[in-house]
């Protein structure tokens, strides 16, 4: 366990930024967003960033290949990216847990190399949540914000920031910036962990349980008539999917640059009307079906294929951002039959 005094935190940032890019949450007019650190940049005190940390590995849009077309000939030029090492500071436990879920999709065979490269080059420093919000329900998914994970975990106690490596990669980073840190005892942060756990117990969603969902069969949930009322006022926008740290559906599109064809990948949303639209029809014509797909995927299909792991980490972004305030918590409670608890 190492520590640095909060008023000297810039020494730590400077030491990290000396060898690689450092990103951390910064207050902007679009809420807290990850920005590159440079002298004078101060870290946001917000609990979480407006957009999730998935952007680091799975950017909203990225080029895959370029095609040069000449007569009947096609030349494929795969996108070549220069990947540099980078550090992300201040990732919360929920977002850190989301990486393991994204890994299951992108790192399973055949490996998505774009994602894999970015993941390999990034070192994640998490930060324990001293002041969780009412929208937090990460504990429902087994996330412990007192033990935030990542390559390095950090805890703030009073005027001191404690750091502990969790992986080899984290170990290496802390060794490299050892000059900015001093030794500390692991026991020092036990009161912080205990306090966080006490706060988590007090949250309005602390008792949210998936028991009601787990006890039901996939087809019974799918054919439930409750989906109609839940999805009734859904606008069909993609806000929930785009701010979600685990939503990873994508589209592959071509763009005529006037100088060739650029094939790029971009985020897509199962909430969109054209998501499953084919030349001869659409298997999900109504918003109810699209809405149902999103939640069935997170709560039933994904666990079915991934040893019971849910594709939600309880970060609460959809609770804060949905224009009509419909969200996964309301779905869990309604579908699980616990809406009055």
């Amino acid at each position, binding site marked *: 366990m190492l520590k640095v005094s909060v008023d000297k935190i810039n020494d730590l940032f400077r030491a990290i930024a000396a060898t690689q890019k450092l990103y951390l949450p910064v207050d902007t007019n679009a809420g807290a967003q990850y920005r590159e650190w440079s002298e004078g940049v101060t870290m946001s005190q917000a609990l979480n960033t407006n957009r999730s940390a998935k952007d680091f590995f799975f950017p909203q849009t990225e080029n895959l290949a370029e095609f040069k077309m000449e007569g009947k000939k096609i030349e494929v030029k795969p996108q070549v990216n220069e990947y540099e090492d980078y550090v992300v500071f201040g990732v919360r436990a929920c977002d850190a847990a989301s990486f393991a879920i994204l890994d299951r999709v992108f790192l399973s065979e055949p490996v998505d190399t774009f994602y894999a490269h970015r993941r390999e080059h990034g070192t994640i420093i998490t930060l324990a949540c001293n002041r969780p919000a009412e929208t937090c329900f990460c504990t429902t998914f087994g996330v412990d914000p007192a033990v935030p994970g990542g390559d390095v975990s950090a805890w703030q106690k009073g005027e001191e920031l404690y750091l502990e490596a969790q992986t080899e990669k984290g170990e290496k980073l802390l060794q490299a910036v050892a000059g900015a840190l001093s030794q500390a005892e692991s026991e020092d942060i036990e009161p912080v962990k205990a306090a966080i756990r006490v706060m988590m117990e007090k949250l309005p969603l602390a008792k949210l349980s998936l028991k009601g969902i787990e006890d039901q069969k996939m087809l019974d949930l799918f054919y439930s008539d409750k989906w109609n009322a839940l999805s009734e006022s859904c606008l069909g926008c993609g806000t929930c999917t785009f701010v979600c740290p685990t939503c990873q559906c994508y*589209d*592959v599109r071509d763009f005529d640059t006037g100088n060739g064809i650029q094939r790029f990948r971009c985020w897509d949303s199962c909430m969109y009307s054209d998501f499953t639209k084919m030349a001869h029809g659409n*298997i999900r014509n109504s918003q109810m079906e699209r809405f149902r797909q999103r939640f069935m995927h997170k709560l039933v299909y994904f666990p079915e294929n991934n040893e019971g792991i849910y594709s939600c980490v309880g970060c609460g972004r959809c609770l804060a951002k949905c224009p009509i305030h419909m969200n996964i918590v309301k779905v869990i409670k309604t579908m699980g039959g616990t809406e009055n608890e």
Partner: protein
Amino acid sequence: MSERIDPLIPMVGVVTDIRVDTPDVKTFRVEAPEGGKVFEHIPGQCAMLSVPGVGEGMFSITSSPTQKNYMEFSIKKCGCVTSWLHSMEVGQMITIRGPYGNGFPVDTDFKGKDMVFIAGGIGLAPLHSVINYARDKRDQYGTIDVVYGSRSMDDLVDFPEIQNVWCKEEGMNVHLTIDREQEGWDGHVGFVPNYVKELGFDASKTFIICGPPIMIKFTLAGLTEMGIAKNQVYTTMELKMKCGIGKCGRCNIGDKYVCKDGPVFRCDQIDEMTNEY
């Protein structure tokens, strides 16, 4: 690390032959630019074909893996990509990646079985590969029946091959039907599901169905009436796909991804799936 090629990056294929099958179906032969197949596959698997700037789409590989020199795709004209493909001339390059999907269990469950192939319209395309595979490895399979129907005589895909090769092959019975009476047609007239019932098959055979959803639905009902267990019936599905590798998230039917867990499903598995197909 940098030598890894991403699975989304396609290869180039050259269209070396184009056959007009029906007014809206053409069969394209695709080879690697240096000749030979772009990759190997098993019957029932698919490939992502694309015309850069127009789009990418998933298509069944129609040719049998026993065909060593090329792959073929029978494609019906119905959207942007297929219309563009139909406008191609021989020598045109396209991009191709794959193979995708599970394919038919030709070397396991199908081994030694009497097989009945039931197809409607362009639904013959994915079955074509298995039929020719079984023909080429004749001693490994029992009898082969093909029940194939289309709107009209002109809409029967691969009609010359069916007439000149399949119909003449020993141990192979071909039953053709068209929806309505037509001049020059002295064969059966009527819809596929009814024809299957008329023909009546032994309940011990293995059935492989592909065609429009409505045909599959009624044929399945007919087979069930005939006392055929659903675990002896196979079909192959088609949904919108973007990646082909189970990541882009759009071709799922419940917890199954058609691109990865399918496109071939046994009909008893389908009963356990949601109805979004």
